[in-house]
């Protein structure tokens, strides 16, 4: 992160490890042209999807809570670029980006947001509660911190089955203060479970800045008393994310136990759609957008370093917009669930 003052924050409210990590260090890992193109497309899909979700929310087509991932796209895409098929993903309530990154169909995600029968949960879960067993995405959990124990349980199952899979368990800086996180850390290290804990530090737990909620603001150190290694990562640069992710996932997959990655990132939008935005300045937000946008950085690199014609990127933009528009079209025209759905999926039939 940039320094707090630069970002328009008061000195008394520092963010961890803010020593200008965005200036491309000489040892910043490099992406090939194809990797950058892939990252660009994936991140842009999340960005445009979330923008559309915000619009639909404003139109009253999405109800309840809606937490947008805009600004944090590099985290989940970098992580996915380092994972392999079969690795599980689980996160909290800001989950749309994770679902798209796992390869879930934008139509099904958007239709769930609008509460329609074609949604991933047939309209019965909503923004915070979506799952895809096929894509190994285990939610989508509305209780802050609950996904950490559950994600540790996914890793327990991997170890039990010796299947070589790794559980990527995401949480925010707010969830990182929950007690069950440390219960999970303890057991994960005790049993050497293959889990990577990804702490997405976007600086604010709802409206409470990290410094106002956390005695230890360096989240990479949160596993120290259990002997879990951790590192702080520039979560705005998809390349550094993927590099750290590869290290952490290899550690977990090789039987060394859990690993903590603190992803230093930033959410442009409010906590939810009803955020009053009184806890930070507009300058802080626009500074991040203008200077450290994860997508803009890749776009620039594609043009300047990889020599990709702007027209090609425009084509990608158009393709992404079309995908998102199709999703919105589906999500607004798909019928609501059949009333009989009220009474289904409460219990499974017992096997004979």
């Amino acid at each position, binding site marked *: 992160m940039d320094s707090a003052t630069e970002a328009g924050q008061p000195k008394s409210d520092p963010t961890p490890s803010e020593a200008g990590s965005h200036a491309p260090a000489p040892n910043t890992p490099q992406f090939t042209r194809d990797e950058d193109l892939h990252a660009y497309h994936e991140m842009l899909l999340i960005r445009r999807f979330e923008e559309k979700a915000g619009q639909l929310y404003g139109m009253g087509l999405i109800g309840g809570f809606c937490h947008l991932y805009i600004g944090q796209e590099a985290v989940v895409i970098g992580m996915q670029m380092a994972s392999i098929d079969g690795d*599980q993903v*689980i996160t909290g309530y800001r989950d749309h980006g994770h679902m798209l990154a796992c390869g879930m169909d934008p139509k099904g995600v958007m239709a769930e947001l609008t509460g329609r029968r074609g*949604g*991933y*949960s*047939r*309209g*019965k*879960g*909503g923004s915070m*509660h*979506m*799952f*895809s*067993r096929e894509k190994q995405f*285990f*939610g*989508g*959990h*509305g*209780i802050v911190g*609950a996904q*950490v*124990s*559950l*994600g*540790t*349980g*996914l*890793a*327990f*199952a*991997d170890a*039990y*089955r010796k299947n070589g899979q790794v559980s990527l368990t995401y949480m925010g800086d707010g969830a990182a203060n929950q*007690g*069950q996180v440390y*219960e*999970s850390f*303890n*057991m994960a290290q*005790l049993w050497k479970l293959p889990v990577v804990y990804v702490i997405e530090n976007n600086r604010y737990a709802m409206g409470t800045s990290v410094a106002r909620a956390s005695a230890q603001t360096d989240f990479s150190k949160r596993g120290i008393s259990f002997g879990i290694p951790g590192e702080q990562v520039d979560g705005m640069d998809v390349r550094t994310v993927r590099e750290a992710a590869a290290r952490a996932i290899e550690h977990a997959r090789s039987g060394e136990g859990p690993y903590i990655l603190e992803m230093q990132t930033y959410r442009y939008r409010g906590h939810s759609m009803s955020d009053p935005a009184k806890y930070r300045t507009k300058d802080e937000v626009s500074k991040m957008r203008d200077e450290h946008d994860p997508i803009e950085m890749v776009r620039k690199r594609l043009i300047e370093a990889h020599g990709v014609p702007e027209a090609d990127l425009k084509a990608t933009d158009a393709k992404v917009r079309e995908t998102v528009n199709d999703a919105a079209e589906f999500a607004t025209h798909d019928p609501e669930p059949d009333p009989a759905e009220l009474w*289904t*999926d*409460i*219990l*499974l*039939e*017992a*096997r004979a």
Partner: protein
Amino acid sequence: MATDILMPALSPTMEEGKLAKWLKKEGDPVKSGDVLAEIETDKATMEVEAIDEGVLAKILVAEGSEGVKVNTPIAIITAEGEDVSAASAPKPAANTPAQGAPTPTMQAEGQADAPAATAKSGDDAQRAPAAPATITNKAPAPVMAEFPEGTEMVTMTVREALRDAMAEEMRGDDSVFVMGEEVAEYQGAYKITQGLLQEFGARRVVDTPITEHGFAGIGVGAAFTGLRPIVEFMTFNFAMQAIDHIINSAAKTLYMSGGQLGCPIVFRGPNGAAARVGAQHSHDYSAWYSNVPGLKVIAPYTASDAKGLLKAAIRDPNPIIFLENEILYGQSFPVPKLDDFVLPIGKARIHRPGTDVTIVSFSIGMTYALKAAQALAEQGIEAEVIDLRTLRPMDTETVVESVKKTGRCVTVEEGFPQSGIGAEIVARLMVDAFDYLDAPVLRVTGKDVPMPYAANLEKLALPNVAEVIEAVKAVCYR
């Protein structure tokens, strides 16, 4: 002066034990603190210490004796030079057990079990109508054929039945494992998992740290992937720390995922009051869990039901709350000797047929109900006693059919009155059997107070047989 050494209790719920070994013989001098004998229960062993100086004058219970009741004199210690024959005085009254009671030297059980500092008082022994001495745990009425006629029956404790159920399911399915505090090396705080570590190893019998919230979440996460965890809570009181995962993660995810993500998990452990363990270790959560869609809730009474229903629970693809009772653990019942005895979840059983009144209960409540029914029969009232066995889904049909026949109903439970299981039954009968009722349905419940510690207050807080008899007479207008 001669002193009787009494059979000690190593926990407040112990009724009897085995005198395994005498370490002193008749005529040996003893001093305070000397180990006189070793006793065993199915849960643990302990040493009996002398608390007085003197001579071990007479051994009253031979080594190897099984089923020695708590507070039975097992030996006599006389003062130096005193005549042994002078010691064979009448036994001390049952309600003065402290005299001569040896001091147990071993804390045998887990957090939930206060070590017995003194032997159980006679008062205590009466507190629980559960005392098996007065209930002949016969096979239930053959109202429903749940196993073939002529099946050989073996007598076993609820504890053994639960263990056998887990062991059988673990043998048949590698995805079944058990996790919890002290389930492996300690063999279970209440010895329910005895021997499982030895048979199945540490991969499948997992000792956890004291961290209910965390390991409940880990169990649920593992179940999402298709494993079948059995999560043991040392008591359901501690599951309060984990209730978020039980309700929000286990019970709701199938629905919230549109049917994609089932959670085949069993949460089991002792629920409700044990004896003298105070308010934080005595809560009955039957009504709480029975309130939640997405869960199935089972609360068996007999060993046979414990076995058949636990096996069914482990096979069930849904999250199951399996509420056991510490006082019932040591009670014995006939259990059918079958290779694979599985009972249906959600079916009540008429435990005792009758014509005059229906008594509905479950778990340890059945002990009050059955004793009351026995006493009422002597007074000419034939009560039909229904054991719900499963609280959710609740078998209303069996209850309604019975009430249609008897026209009267009393419910019995140890839980609190407000919004309890009895309240639910009353509400259902209002809808489904209103025209058949000849009297308002009455509830016998635990009192509306936190569980007190003092023996007399605890006894008052719990339901008792007299209250059941009184309620039955009231609904019979007798």
